């Protein structure tokens, strides 16, 4: 029997990568770090005629802090976020989220773009990125478009990207004055585990202690990671000292219908949404 194999492409520019992919059929894919795709490939869960590795595109590996915000190249490994001294200091929520994924060797392989495009409900980078109003920057090789990350996820495992397009960057604007942000999650084990429930939160508070804007983002409790708008609305316009935590947590909990799976029951997940939302808000208020 002929062993299974595929064509392997190694473009060195985004334009070449898009052009190659545009000419390929449905059974082809981009290969980033491979921590998910190579596992599926080895287990025979997926088969491709062509894989387009984007690991030789150096322009996709940069992490840059510019005037408008942070530009994370899609191929920046999670360990680059974990150990980025400046990021750790000014946006510790992102280096923390990155540092808690998988293991140190996996974080050297896995990339921020891969974590986003894989679109797992439990992806640990996504809640914090949504809470920071991050945007996906997508190129077709000649033009780019951007999409708020909160609107980028179509369904479990599916993002808003067309054939011939590639995620080049995750852009995170500098948080406005008065904004604090945090992420908490629940796992069974400290390493090599994925979140059972994750909650990222952010609030913007003015000088009078009034909440001007709020983000509550729930991970691992719905097919697509998203914001709990009903909970956020209970916070906006209120003095943080007067937050009705019980109501806010109830609203967060009611905004999704978690499932029972190998990691937890739906009842446990619902309960943990309340618990983590309360902890997140308390931490934000006391920051």
């Amino acid at each position: 029997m002929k062993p299974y194999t595929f064509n392997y492409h190694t473009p060195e520019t985004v334009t070449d990568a898009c052009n190659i992919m545009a000419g390929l059929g449905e059974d082809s894919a981009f290969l980033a770090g491979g921590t998910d795709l190579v596992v599926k490939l080895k287990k025979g869960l997926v088969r491709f005629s062509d894989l387009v590795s984007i690991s030789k595109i150096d322009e996709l590996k940069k992490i840059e802090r510019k005037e408008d915000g942070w530009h994370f190249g899609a191929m920046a490994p999670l360990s680059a976020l974990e150990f980025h001294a400046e990021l750790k200091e000014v946006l510790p929520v992102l280096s923390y989220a990155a540092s808690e994924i998988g293991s140190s060797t996996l974080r050297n392989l896995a990339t921020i773009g891969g974590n986003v495009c894989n679109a797992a409900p439990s992806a640990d980078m996504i809640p914090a990125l949504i809470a920071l109003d991050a945007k996906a920057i997508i190129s077709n090789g000649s033009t780019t478009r951007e999409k708020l990350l909160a609107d980028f996820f179509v369904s479990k495992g599916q993002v808003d990207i067309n054939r011939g397009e590639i995620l080049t960057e995750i852009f995170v604007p500098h948080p406005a004055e008065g904004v604090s942000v945090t992420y908490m999650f629940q796992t069974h084990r400290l390493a090599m585990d994925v979140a059972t429930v994750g909650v990222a939160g952010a609030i913007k508070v003015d000088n009078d202690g009034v909440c001007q804007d709020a983000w509550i983002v729930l991970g691992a409790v719905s097919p697509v990671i998203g914001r709990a708008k009903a909970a956020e609305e209970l916070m906006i316009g209120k003095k943080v000292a007067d937050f009705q935590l019980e109501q806010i947590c109830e609203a967060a909990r009611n905004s999704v219908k978690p499932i029972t799976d190998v990691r937890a029951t739906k009842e446990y997940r619902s309960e943990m949404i309340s618990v983590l939302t309360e902890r997140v808000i308390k931490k934000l208020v006391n920051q």
Partner: protein
Amino acid sequence: MSHEINFKLNDEQVKVFVEPQKALVDLLRDEMELTGTKESCGDGQCGSCTVLIDGVPFNSCLTLGVAVDGKSVETIEGLAQGEKLHPIQQAFAENGAVQCGYCTPGMIMTAKGLLARNPDPSKDEIRHQMAGNLCRCTGYEKIIDAVHSSAGMLKEVK
């Protein structure tokens, strides 16, 4: 289709032909006959296949062989100089950090990468960074001790 790749393997320039579906661990073990690198789970859960690529530890079971073209790969075989053990290997021996030995090459390569980035890690950092390397004989305390003491030994060498 086979790809010609050129890379440095334990400081020696090599050229091989490899099918794109072949994982680096299989390339190392089957083609290069370097069986010091162990494969256990085969899907990135256990760390036993860890090797250094350009000085950084990676799971060689999830890295395609073709991806190391132009890079420098270091395996456990590259550490000792003749009979003289590398300080991390020495520390593992002295601390009794080896039981069945199957996880040891991966542990040592992860430790080498960790110490290259941070020559003076706390035990907590060692635990966090080594958490993806599983030992089923459960000798973690001695492994942590070995990595911690080898940090001191490496500094003395310098």
